[in-house]
């Protein structure tokens, strides 16, 4: 369960980017986060990964209060979350396998488990046979799928994606979003930020709409 209670966010020296956000997102839901560029979608996701601090209000995720979460507890919290970025943020000097394994290594997973779990994650995204390739040799869609494998290899409770299809053509976008739906079917809570109207219409998923820092959510989530 993700719960925003009167959450406000402003960056130093700037007017409010998010105002009085109230939202209750039950466990296992999949929703889209929509809104024009600059509306605050990335900022909202950064609050959920504790890359940014809440300015005012309460943000609870799975029983953890992110506003008061101690620095030393942030890593353990982040291991419960998976994040996918528009620019995938892969390490270009490491092969596919090691990009994905990083998530497990930082969590201290024993080496013998890492191999089978990384393979399984890459199978899921359809890259089971590309383990030893460098990201630069993959297409944009394939790179994004490596990013997704890295985000789900540790079976997070929550999967966040910030415009994951922003750089992809429509066919590839559909593939990626269908992957997210797969994870959702297996019980993961999924929150995908997008301003792609075509996707929003096609998927028929509930949408949270951000506009000038204010959130407009369907009744069941507010």
């Amino acid at each position, binding site marked *: 369960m993700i719960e925003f209670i009167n959450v406000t966010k402003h960056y130093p020296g700037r007017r409010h980017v998010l105002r009085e956000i109230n939202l209750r997102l039950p466990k296992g839901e999949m929703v889209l986060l929509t809104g024009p560029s600059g509306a605050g979608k990335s900022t909202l996701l950064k609050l959920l990964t504790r890359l940014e601090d809440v300015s005012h209000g309460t943000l609870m995720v799975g029983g953890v209060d992110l506003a008061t979460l101690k620095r030393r507890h942030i890593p*353990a919290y*982040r291991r419960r979350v998976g994040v996918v970025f528009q620019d995938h943020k892969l390490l270009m000097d490491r092969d596919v396998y090691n990009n994905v394994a990083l998530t497990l290594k930082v969590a201290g997973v024993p080496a013998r488990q890492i191999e089978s779990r990384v393979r399984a994650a890459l199978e899921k995204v359809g890259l089971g046979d590309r383990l030893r390739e460098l990201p630069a040799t993959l297409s944009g869609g394939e790179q994004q799928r490596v990013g997704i494998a890295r985000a789900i290899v540790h079976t997070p409770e929550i999967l966040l994606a910030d415009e994951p299809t922003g750089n992809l053509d429509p066919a590839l976008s559909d593939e990626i979003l269908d992957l997210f739906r797969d994870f959702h079917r297996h019980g993961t809570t999924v929150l995908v930020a997008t301003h792609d109207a075509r996707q929003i219409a096609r998927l028929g998923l509930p949408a949270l709409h951000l506009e000038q820092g204010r959130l407009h959510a369907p009744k069941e989530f507010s």
Partner: protein
Amino acid sequence: MNLHLRLDALRNARDTLLQQPLATLLTVLALAIVLALPVGLFTALNNLQLLLGQWRDQAQISLYLHNDASAADVAKLRARIEHSTGVVAVHYISRAQALADFEHSAGMQAAVDVLGENPLPASLVVEINPLAQSSADLDAQVQSWAKEPVVASAQSDLHWVARLQAILALGTRAVWILALLLALGAVLVMGNTIRLHIAQRRDEIDIASLVGATRSFIRRPFLYQGLIQGLLAGALAWAVVAVAILSLQGPVDRLAALYGTHFTLVGLRPEQGLALIAISAFLGWLGSRIAVGRHLDHTFS
């Protein structure tokens, strides 16, 4: 803490260092030179002290004995002096021996003949190591010997001991100051090297942090890099000092021969060498720790 995480970090540090062999070599060399300088000077001072400690001819105290002192009392005093701090040897010079030496050294045969009777007292000649104790303690020691019932008077010229000790104290202090400054330099060199490594790996650090790496997980490879380079630099500095000593022994031999003596230069003892490596590894770790503290912490806000 998980051993396999530490081993991973160690491998990671090793790989990073080996990927840039030239940069690593230069850092290690710079550190080794910075360390070899004060260690070399300490070693030189140590050798100087050993050499001066052997300077017995100059460091003698004569205790002139009463003519009526009993042989047993003199033997007792002699035994006590032999066990005192810094005493290298005690020689007993009988009256007859003193007279013979006098005749010999001064060519005073005629004068002695005129005197008829032997005017010289027996004495104990104490050879000391002038650096074994402070000059004040040495003075006090000589005073106490002079007050012994069997001793009529004492003769010593030990002002030079005080001067020598003052000069050595000055030299030691100067080398310490230099050593501290250079240790600081070593920390800065390492800090800067690690800062560059951190900058090179910014992306990796950010992503690791995002997927839940702890602070210590991210720090560890950098700390190990500092430690490893410090370790290597310490070992190299030890080798440099050892080679310097080997190459100086020949000239020292020739110089000593001119003075009719010989002197073996002393290098670092094994435990000193190991201490050098440990200190150097610590300095490398410290430099890296400071860089990591300054350049990594904002990742975790």
